[in-house]
């Protein structure tokens, strides 16, 4: 019998598991995918948001602020990067310019005091090479870029060091509250827990049915991106934001921790929860939009394309609630800020736990469990004198990194997991040079390399 079962190994579930384990609880994470981050958390913009434009006085804002602070506090002990890009919001027309003062006031009201207005000259200094025509802008120095995959991995690894259990390929099919505890039915057998936390992201409403008629409905909202080659990286110094309108935050141009540039995301409603498709016309439009904003992006090739799904609901706010009678906590609708807010959400959920389910032990001194660095601007494995064989030259991934990612406490569960842990095959050649080598290293360990030729 576990103290708590967390359903869903997205960034939110990973952060929850860590917080629970730090407080001495026997926690288990149940993830339906072959690896963590199989849902919304595998594809996002990778920004650590300040919350400058979050709804004022909201739970979302509070969680973002707390998550942001805690990320800065723990990142060094977990080996997590922070690329201090800042962001520049650019108004390209008068209507947009007219919205800047209220955005500035909101930022200050949200406690992000260092946001300030920019004139065209300052915009050009912060981001040289922008298309002509910027009228005015805002500088948000605290918006940063992080590694969206290493962070949740580090949270889970720390949780495991504190005794948590992770079960993958483990979809919760049903849940029954029996004699004061939950019995969760999974393909790996029944899992018993006193309390269940629903962090099932895009499947949040389906999982919620085990406890009650869900008061929310998940409405996936897709965001497509193009990733430009590393050659483009030097041209993008900061996160370039448009002025948001009522409907969307708009298309951004920003550097990634891995030394690329991304342009996206779109905002498209869809019903499917399990796949996020790109389409050529949208991708072409993103490439064009990137060049429109920053003409120097022309001529830099597209390295990768992807789409992510935001686990939105019919309302815009987070849907976090404790159900004491059901011994259940729902953590749903973590739509577009979950990477930032996850650590803060975990703290908030711990408070709910304390309030509704009794006392909680103080946090233990965290065991430092650093993850390997994948950020371009920090020392990487290939830079060490004992680097050894380099398997992927586009992303400079060594054999030792691949082997480490295939072993240890939470080895990659599928090729996607290996890619996210090492960057192998994510570069400009997309495996043209290294697919065979990777297959030989991973044969028998990843489902993709299971079939030998006759």
């Amino acid at each position, binding site marked *: 019998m576990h103290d708590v079962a967390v359903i869903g190994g997205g960034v939110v579930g990973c952060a929850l598991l860590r917080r629970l384990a730090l407080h001495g609880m026997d926690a288990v994470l149940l993830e339906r995918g072959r690896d963590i981050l199989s849902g919304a958390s595998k594809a996002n913009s990778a920004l650590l948001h300040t919350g400058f434009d979050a709804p004022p006085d909201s739970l979302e804002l509070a969680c973002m602020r707390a998550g942001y602070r805690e990320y800065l506090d723990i990142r060094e002990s977990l080996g997590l990067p922070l690329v201090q890009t800042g962001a520049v919001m650019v108004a390209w027309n008068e209507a947009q310019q007219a919205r800047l003062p209220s955005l500035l006031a909101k930022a200050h009201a949200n406690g992000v005091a260092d946001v300030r207005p920019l004139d065209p000259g300052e915009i050009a200094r912060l981001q040289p090479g922008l298309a002509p025509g910027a009228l005015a802008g805002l500088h948000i120095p605290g918006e940063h870029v992080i590694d969206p995959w290493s962070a949740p991995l580090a949270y889970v690894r720390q949780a495991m060091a504190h005794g948590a259990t992770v079960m993958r390929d483990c979809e919760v099919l049903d849940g029954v509250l029996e004699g004061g505890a939950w019995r969760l039915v999974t393909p790996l057998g029944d899992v018993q827990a006193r309390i269940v936390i629903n962090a099932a992201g895009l499947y949040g409403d389906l999982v919620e049915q085990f406890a009650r008629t869900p008061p929310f409905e998940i409405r996936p909202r897709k965001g497509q991106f193009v990733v430009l080659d590393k050659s483009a990286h030097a041209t993008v110094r900061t996160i370039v934001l448009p002025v948001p309108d009522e409907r969307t935050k708009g298309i951004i141009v920003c550097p990634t921790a891995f030394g690329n540039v991304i342009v996206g995301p779109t905002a498209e409603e869809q019903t499917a929860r399990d796949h996020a498709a790109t389409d050529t016309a949208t991708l072409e439009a993103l490439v064009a939009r990137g060049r429109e904003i920053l003409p120097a992006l022309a001529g830099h090739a*597209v390295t*990768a394309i992807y789409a992510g799904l935001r686990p939105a609901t019919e309302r815009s706010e987070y849907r976090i609630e404790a159900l004491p009678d059901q011994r259940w906590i729902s953590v749903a609708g973590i739509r577009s800020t979950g990477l930032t807010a996850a650590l803060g959400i975990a703290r908030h959920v711990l408070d709910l736990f304390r309030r509704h389910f009794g006392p909680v032990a103080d946090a233990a001194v965290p065991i430092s469990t650093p993850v390997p660095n994948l950020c371009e601007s920090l020392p990487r494995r290939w830079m060490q*004198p004992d680097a050894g064989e380099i398997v992927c030259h586009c992303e400079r991934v060594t054999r030792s990194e691949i082997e480490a990612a295939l072993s240890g406490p939470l080895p990659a569960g599928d090729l996607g997991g290996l890619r996210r842990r090492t960057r192998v095959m994510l570069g*400009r050649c997309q495996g*043209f040079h290294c697919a065979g080598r990777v297959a030989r290293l991973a044969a028998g360990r990843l489902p993709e390399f299971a079939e030998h030729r006759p």
Partner: protein
Amino acid sequence: MEPDGTLRIAGPDGPGVLRARAVLLALGTRETPRSARLVGGSRPWGVFTTGALQQLVHGAHQRPCRRAVIVGSELVALSNLLTFRHAGIAPVAIVEDRRRTLVAPPLAWAAGVAFGTPVLTDARPVAIHGTHRVEALEIDHRGRRRILPCDGVIFTGRFVPDAAPLAGSPITMDAGTGGPVVDQYGRTAIPTIFAAGNVLRPVEPSWTAWTEGRAVGRAIAEQLGGRLPAPSRRTTLSAAPPLRFVCPQQWSEPSPLRAALPMQVRSEEDVSGRLRFTAHGEELWGRRARLRTGRRIPVGVRLGDIASGTEVLVEVVRPN
């Protein structure tokens, strides 16, 4: 590469620096993957380039898919059919977005007869479907959407020089070839840095790349031996659409040795007419030519004699 031609390298012993009296860039080429072609859909396992598939099959003894569609109809598409046969993969179709296949029609026809593979021209991949594994390729075939059920999609050809390490270096690049601008001895904008093989342009068979490597190697030896002086005048060539490129893009004087790189021209589309080299509007050299998309047209012009130091335009003049 640093501005002064110093090479920064990464190897088993970590990063290092190389300085040399001469460098030969033989970085080769790679295929354009699905992502850079902006083919939409989901991102399941089963989408490869020829290069990746061959390594998986021959290097790692895998059968990564059982029924696959081949996208593209350059020669390399046919080599996939051999790999398929070797690995026990059934070819579903060859899909080519142009109206004609890029290999000579009899070869495409042979693909159909020998391998029973339908060749669909005017057919463009639209989206890849599938969650964990590829389940189908959706194509636009002559304006109609079609679903080709399969568990593999191989993106073949559309080779690009693998010139990424040159980004940011002072070596001039040619947007037409995707490779460095070189003269007839393979010299780049830094005269001690040479290039040969498929880093120069898409794409020659291995024996041609090998021949180029030898010839440029000889030029390097001559230069090190003091018998090939630094260029004092350079003629620059540029290709007008629909020509995609002319390579080498420069002719240097003095030219005491035979050219290491034979000059060639390639076209973006099928076109015939008079292929002309002109300077200041005056024809230096010309002949009638039929150019087929992506195929090499050798050009037997010795520019040294006629146009030293000028800018030469290479164009096809179609008959009225």
